[in-house]
């Protein structure tokens, strides 16, 4: 288990998971990125610039909101960590600003990213506009069709959006396309990966940039309640908001940590995005982790109503936290997530994104009498069409 403070040594492996399963061309650049991040994260000037942008530009700290009507339903005390209130509407901006600053520090004027639903693409395009970096976003053509407004947002922000036409034309192929671009352009280009996945150092880098969620929540709950929560609940696709939240509590043995994956049409249907819950293990996009695959090692297409969870892999640190028994991973179906989406809107006047609606659905099904923190990782405007069409 790992939650290193600033200055800790490099982290490439999480137990048996992680590593760098990449073409040789990327090994040198990954070394360079790793060193740049180890230097940057203990550099007071870098941290001051990052903190200032996260505060004045992105809107941190986000509130930890005690949700009274939701608490009444569960019978306990539920706090929502309001990442949905950030600029661009989700936690993705924490990582995008940090990595864009890092790109600038490394002297790389071109930034590439992948996006599924478009949230990470919009966050990266935003950070690049802010810092004056050239930005290209790979997006599956099927996702471009489903998420047209986010394509237009990225273009307004000055990013180029490149359609990916391979495979199912969704997030998995967009990541592959970004990695292929990077193999050829690595001397001038930084790849801003959107979740706590990919070859080392990305899973640790993204976790470090998202741990602000957990660190803030820990301070806030102690100020509000004078103690730590009984449970912290977060949705897991690649798992960046979850790892960022969990890392703040991972050494507090009495705090239960629950990661909620997307069960899609149901775990038995074969149409889901729950590699952690189903104990899958393989190599995808440069890391050994939980990966949905067939008996021959071909990676399968994931399915979820939530585009942000629609990915067949998850971060290697999650796989390790699962094996260690520190985090419990469960999965929630499309239908239950959509019901929870609607329910929170009526209960609290908050329209959540479909991704954290999975965590909400789990909470409704497993109410606790103590103190719960649920990470509301993004807002639901992007999902209205999907939900209303069902």
């Amino acid at each position, binding site marked *: 288990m790992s939650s290193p403070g600033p200055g800790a040594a490099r982290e490439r492996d999480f137990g048996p998971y992680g590593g760098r399963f990449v073409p040789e061309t990327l090994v040198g650049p990954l070394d360079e990125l790793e060193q740049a991040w180890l230097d940057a994260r203990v550099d007071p000037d870098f941290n001051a610039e990052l903190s200032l942008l996260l505060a004045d530009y992105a809107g941190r700290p986000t509130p930890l909101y005690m949700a009274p009507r939701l608490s009444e339903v569960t019978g306990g005390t539920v706090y929502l960590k309001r990442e949905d209130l950030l600029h661009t509407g989700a936690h993705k901006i924490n990582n995008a600003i940090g990595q864009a600053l890092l790109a600038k520090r490394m002297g790389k004027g071109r930034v590439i990213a992948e996006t599924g639903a478009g949230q990470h693409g919009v966050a990266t395009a935003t950070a690049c506009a802010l810092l004056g970096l050239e930005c290209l976003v790979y997006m599956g053509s099927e996702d471009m069709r489903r998420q047209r407004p986010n394509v237009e947002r990225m273009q307004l922000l000055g990013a180029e959006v490149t359609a990916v036409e391979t495979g199912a034309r969704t997030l998995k192929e967009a990541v592959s396309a970004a990695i*292929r671009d990077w*193999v050829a352009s*690595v001397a001038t280009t930084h790849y801003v990966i959107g979740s706590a996945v990919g070859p080392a150092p990305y899973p640790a880098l993204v976790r470090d940039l998202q741990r602000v969620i957990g660190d803030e929540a820990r301070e806030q709950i102690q100020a509000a309640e004078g103690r730590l929560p009984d449970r912290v609940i977060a949705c897991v696709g690649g798992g960046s908001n979850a790892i960022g939240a969990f890392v703040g509590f991972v050494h507090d043995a009495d705090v239960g940590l629950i990661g909620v994956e997307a069960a899609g049409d149901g775990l038995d249907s074969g149409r889901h995005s729950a590699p952690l819950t189903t104990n899958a293990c393989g*190599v995808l996009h440069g890391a050994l982790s939980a*990966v949905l695959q067939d008996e*021959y090692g*071909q*990676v399968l297409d994931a399915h979820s109503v939530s585009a942000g969870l629609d990915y067949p892999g998850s971060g290697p640190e999650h796989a390790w936290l699962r094996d260690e028994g520190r985090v419990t991973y469960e999965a929630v179906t499309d239908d239950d997530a959509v019901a929870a989406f609607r329910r929170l809107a009526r209960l609290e006047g908050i329209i959540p994104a479909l991704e954290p609606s999975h965590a909400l659905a789990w909470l409704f099904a497993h109410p606790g009498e103590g103190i719960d923190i649920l990470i509301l990782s993004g807002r639901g405007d992007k999902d209205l069409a999907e939900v209303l069409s069902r």
Partner: protein
Amino acid sequence: MPYLMGGYPDPDASRACCAAAADSGADLIELGVPFSDPLADGPVIHAAAGEALAGGVTPDDVLSVCESVAAQVPVVLMVYANVVLQAGLSAYVQRAAAAGAAGMIVPDLPHDESGELREACDAQDVALVPLVAPNTAGCRLDAIGEDARGFVYAVSLTGTTGERSTLPPELATMVERVRAATTLPVAVGFGISTSEHASAVADLADGVIVGSRVVRAAGEGGSAAVGELVSELARALD
């Protein structure tokens, strides 16, 4: 040394393409195992893998193609890490050896991750051929050269597989660097697509690997086109 995608356009045609390449002067065949997410490959080989998978080709089908041609010419399997991991390292290598494979190249298994597989390969007398890139640092190059088996595969450019119009200008320097790091033969691949390229690379290196151009021929004209192309390339190397 032509690269062909195993099971593409279909298993029978794939056997025929390998036989045609062997009959037309190939010194070694690099046989790709289709994978769903081939990060080192450009559009032509990626598409061929996708088509083979859509046709239901399995890693065992590719080994059967390997077996059909291994008596004629050495075969080196190009296979992504997850296919090997899912089968089990030792189990996969044993099956590859039984199918007559002389070696294996795993393009997404860099030196740091390759120890266990190399042991499994050594035990079965299958050469685990490493890749080196133009940006592989000197000390790293030495370590890779030391652990290399069979030959060293020098990736000519920073990028994915695919046809390019010209060779990278720094290729000669790169091949020299690789030679200094190993006593084994050095083969160059990625971006080599014409007889002129092949002939120029042959002046520098011991082996010339042509991939996407040959796969394109297999898709467009089957074994006849592969035979013709490999003959032409082989003539350029004489």
